[in-house]
């Protein structure tokens, strides 16, 4: 059974986000890391890049395949987690502790398009 945390918002494509002060930390869910298997490579844009909700902002790759990362919110990437970039297997060992990018939200109303923990639990169970 994969873990779903109460305080996060989720996309159907298995990204999580934690919003504080207009900035979203974004990562992949426990379900996502378990489905992928060991993550061997992570690629994301750079600070300053604009991303759109539910559009690709990078990719996460297991030995077997590459999967797109979709931004749960629109906005500007303001920080990339270099530690996770250099050690992508952290996404497996601690998916909710390993944010990938911080995005400065351009439209808080978009958060209504995301799932809460209960809603996300329904699609992964």
């Amino acid at each position, binding site marked *: 059974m994969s873990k779903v945390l109460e305080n996060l918002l989720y996309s159907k494509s298995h990204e999580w986000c934690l919003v504080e002060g207009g900035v979203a930390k974004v990562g992949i869910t426990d379900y996502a890391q378990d489905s992928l*298997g*060991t993550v*061997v*490579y992570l*690629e994301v844009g750079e600070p300053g890049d604009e991303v759109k909700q539910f559009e*690709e902002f990078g*990719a996460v*790759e*297991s*030995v*077997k*395949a*590459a999967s797109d990362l979709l931004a749960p919110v629109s906005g500007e990437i303001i920080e990339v987690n270099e530690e996770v970039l250099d050690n992508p297997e952290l996404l497996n060992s601690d998916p909710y502790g390993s944010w990938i990018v911080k995005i400065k939200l351009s439209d808080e109303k978009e958060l209504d398009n995301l799932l809460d923990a209960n809603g996300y639990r329904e699609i992964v169970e």
Partner: protein
Amino acid sequence: MKKTILYDEHCRRGARMVEFAGYLMPLVYTGIAEEHAAVRESSGLFDVSHMGEIRIRGKDANRFVNHLLTCLVPEDGKGRMFYGFLLDDDGGVVDDLMVYVFDGDDYLLVVNAANKDKDFAWINSHKGAFEVSVSDESDLFSQLALQGPLSREVLGRLTDYPLDELKLFGFDHFRIAGKEFMVSRSGYTGEDGFEIYGSNADILALFRELAEEPEVSLCGLGCRDTLRFEAAMPLYGHEIGPEINPLAAGLGFAVNLEKDFIGSEALKKIKAEGPKERIVALELKDRGIAREGYEVVADGETIGRITTGYLLPGRETALAFALVRAEFSEIGTEVAVRIRRNLVPAVVRNRKFLKKKYIR
């Protein structure tokens, strides 16, 4: 959807199952990287019961298999196996396969699961005046592959047969754990190992026995592909296929142009003119993984595409096979691979990703 006799074992032992060639097969047990390492360092056990088996028997069987296959299959080759291709008239690959010589008038073709029905129809359609019988025996056999440097030691515990007398591409029939099997010293990993054929019930019993051996890891199709790739072995539909002939793929060792076979005229012409495209090995010079289908670029234009690519366990740089225009196939040629938004530099290199340790 078909299941092998081992389906329940795979599920009970925690494999992630996936559809492959019409069968539900284990993709991964514990992790592709762990299973890959187990085969390189110890021993891995694979269910390969989905493979197709086609038997060709009769007075003209030797002439017929030599008419069908690119490799020379000797009439007195009993107990040996050979790698070859079925080609179409243009030299395109219908399938690649192993042929086991049971006797001068009796051969077993072990073919790709996804191609089995096509192959069977193809072989029958070329029978002509050859006095042979062709039968699909795929449902009679199940098959295991035990691969890796400790496989000989593991198998030796369960049989009295002198395994050291069985060399690469040799096979025999003998008892393991009290049941009769056909065993070849062969595989698809680049390691020493065995491919074991038996009745469905006997293979189920043997799988359970081998799975208990401490050196043995259960393996899925995920690492089967990374292992064969690292060993520079082709996979049908990737490095060979209707549009990629054996010479373009660099597999001329399995083609004997001194005999006539279906497609031999076309191959002679291709050999004389040189293939227009070639399969090359690439090593990426920067971060990124070249995946199947990605474009290969040189001088600002697309000159080919990736056929298989991985960042293999334990390696720093990604490796790939690509089909490129022949003028870009020299070792040392600098190209680039389009990975999402980026052009990642890569260089054509030799195919020796792995030092093989076969028992010859």
